[in-house]
């Protein structure tokens, strides 16, 4: 698996998941620590820590969601749809290409190959 090259964006999902998890851990931890510091001022109560942890969790959740959505939503606006693949009718004939490139139709008629199946 590791030897396979990445053709396109298939690894992005995994990377985003990893980032979310690390972000979560950091934010929750930081929140808990800050809450713990604040709890010292409030006579050693537990609620600042939970508050901090919760704030961290929420921040990491929203970060993660934005990260996954970034391709569709730009801030709060929808991004325009990406290009669709060309439709069947738009693919040009090889024969036409050949005729365009050469100026001798007799030669081209002799050497035309099978049309590609589309």
């Amino acid at each position, binding site marked *: *698996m590791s*030897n*396979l*090259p*990445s*053709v*396109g*964006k*298939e690894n*992005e*999902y*995994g990377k985003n998941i990893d980032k979310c998890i690390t972000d979560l851990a950091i934010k929750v931890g930081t929140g808990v620590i800050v809450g713990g510091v604040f709890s010292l001022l409030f006579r050693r109560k537990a609620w600042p820590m939970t508050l901090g942890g919760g704030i961290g969790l929420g921040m990491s*959740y929203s970060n*993660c*969601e934005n990260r*996954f*959505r970034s*391709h*569709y*939503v730009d801030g709060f606006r*929808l991004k325009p*749809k*990406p290009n669709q*693949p060309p439709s069947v009718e738009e693919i040009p004939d*090889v024969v036409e*290409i*050949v005729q365009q*490139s*050469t100026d*001798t139709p007799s*030669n*081209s008629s002799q*050497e035309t*190959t099978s049309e*590609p*199946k589309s």
Partner: protein
Amino acid sequence: MLRLGQKAASRLQNEVQANWIRSGRRTLSDSQTSAGLTRSIIVGGGLFACACGGTVAYAKVSPDFRKNVEKNAPPIATVFDMVLGPSRTEIKDKIPSDAFKSKIKTKSVDPLKAPLKDSRKVLETTEPSNAVEATTPPNVPAPEITAPTPAEQQGEENQSLLIQNMQNNEKLPSDEAKPADQEENQVSDVKPTQIEEVTTQKEQQSSNIQTSNVETEKNDQQQISLKTEERILQQEVEEIADAAATSAILDDLLNACSIACSNAILLNVNAANAIALHSSILRTANDDFAASATEKSLQWEDVAHARDDMNKAQIEAEASFRNAIEELAKIKHVLQETNCENNHDLGQRVVDIGRDCMNMSHDLEEAKARVQGKVLEADVLKRYLEDIEKMKEKFQNEFESSLPTISTEPEWKRTGKRVSQDEENAMLLHMQHRVEELQRELSEERTLGAERLDEVVSSVRAEVEDHVKKLAELDLHKRLEEQRLNHEEQVTELQRTHDDDIRRQLKRQASAHVEHMSEALSYMERQAAEKYEKLVETTMEEQKSEFLVMMEAERAANEAKTASIIDKHQLELEMAIARVRGIEQAVDGRAHVENVTRKAQELSLACDALLHTIKYGDKGKPVPLATELTTVKKVYDDNNALNVFSAAVPTEAVERGVYTEEILRASFRRIGKICRRVSLVDQNRNSLFVYFLSYLKSLLTVSSAQLAPPTEIDQSALDVFTIISYSNYCLDHGNLEQAARFVNQLTGEPRRVVEGWLKEARLLLETRQAVEALATVSKGLVIGAQLEK
């Protein structure tokens, strides 16, 4: 508050204690630092003293070290001189006799024996004699010393004169030493200059010889004469060196001798003076009755000192006298050994030095005689004093024996007892008797003394006559010596002039001979040259004519031969050309056929390479197809189809390359999984919750990995899972095209995930199509080429 106060108080107390302790430590450290300072000063001073002592001791042991230190730091030299005394090198400079002895030892062998024997064989020495004349130093002014007369009345004056002369003489030798050194240097300078002159002359002569080497017969004789001249000059040079060396040696010896003699004379004079002084002091000490006791004791002390000085002076005089005699003997020995048959100036010098030595020895002996005279005087005085003492004692004894009751003067004076009148009368009577007796004795003595004096006078006269005779003999001998020396001088002078004349004549003759020889040689050379030139011309003419005739014959023969050869070769050449033309035509036809087949083969190979690259790549990595395509183009430039199809290969494949089918297949597995996980996500539903739901769905949905797609597809029934299954199936069966078609039906987030893969798949399909077309064309061409054969 109280507690606070108590705490504060306790803290304050602690602080104070800490400060006190700290200050205590500081004071301790202060005292410690001061004590440490003195200790360090003491240690430093001790080390410095040790260093100084060590350097002084090492300088004493090793003179090289001392020299180095003195060179680098001159003030330290004064310290060294104070502590250790002057260095040995300085002392060595001040003692010339040792150096001269060593010089005599080294030089007495070489220059006096061997080279002078060689010089006897040589006839002429003109230039070196002139040079040596220039280097003879002035004569030692010894004749000044021959003045003093032997009479004792003029003894003191002569001694003073002599001392002055000795001092002058001392100065002169020391001055002479310097000019002698300078002259030695001059001699040594003159020697090399002479040698240089001689060598330059030789070089000139040798260069002349070299320039004249080109000519023929006269060179040999010239060379011989020149060689003899060279040898003569060499010997002259040697003689110069020898003469200079001997004169230097003689100068050195003379200096040493004069110094030793003057030293000896001075010391002898000193001894004589010391003896005279001693006797005079003794006389005054004995005769001076009026002096008090302390003065008397002082006088007797002076006498003792004078006696010590006298003894010392005598010893020194003896030693110096012996030394001077040794020196004189040495110089006489050297003079006898110097052989100066050929060097008249050296002989003159030898004579002068001999004269000086003789004078010096005379002076030495005179001084010695004077000393001895003084010694005799001292003996006389001693005897006189002894007699006086004896008389005194006798009188004392008589006095005591005649008048034993009366005690001696000091006792009487001490006790203060008055002598009685009788005793006084007796004493006076005795005195009178004694005086009359003494007067009678005196008159007797006077008469006897007159007789004795007459006797002594006569004996002395005889002695004086003998002495005068001896002196006369000595004088005569001296005059004879002088005359002999003069005679020798004149003889040497005459010899020298005679030798000069003969040398000049011989030189003239030699030069005339050489001129005559050179003229004869040049005439003969001219004659020979003319003859040989004529001979050479005639022979050259003959040879030339013969050679021309021979050349003509040879040329004719050669021309005939070459004509025949040319004809033969022409024929052969034409035949060969015809054959070659036939071969060429056959080969051209063959080459065309071969070319066509080769090109077709190459093309097929290139296309195979392309296919291979597409199929396998570089272990999975995409390989740019640019090189292969250019190869194809190179092989078949003019074929339209090939150009078209190679142009149809997409540019990205040409530049970057394509992924192989294997890789796409392998990567699709992962991609398919990811698509399943994000199956519910699309543009409208893309919150995190949806992601979670789609993940959950993927976990819970059971779908086979591969599903065979049906022949008819219902588009509404297609969802992510089925699409993925169909695509997997198609891929496993090698139908990439169909798989791509299925994958194309995805939408939303799965579509995004799969986009890259799809692009790569399309690229691969396009490239494969173009390359297969190329391959087909190339196969057709190959078949065509085969048919052409």
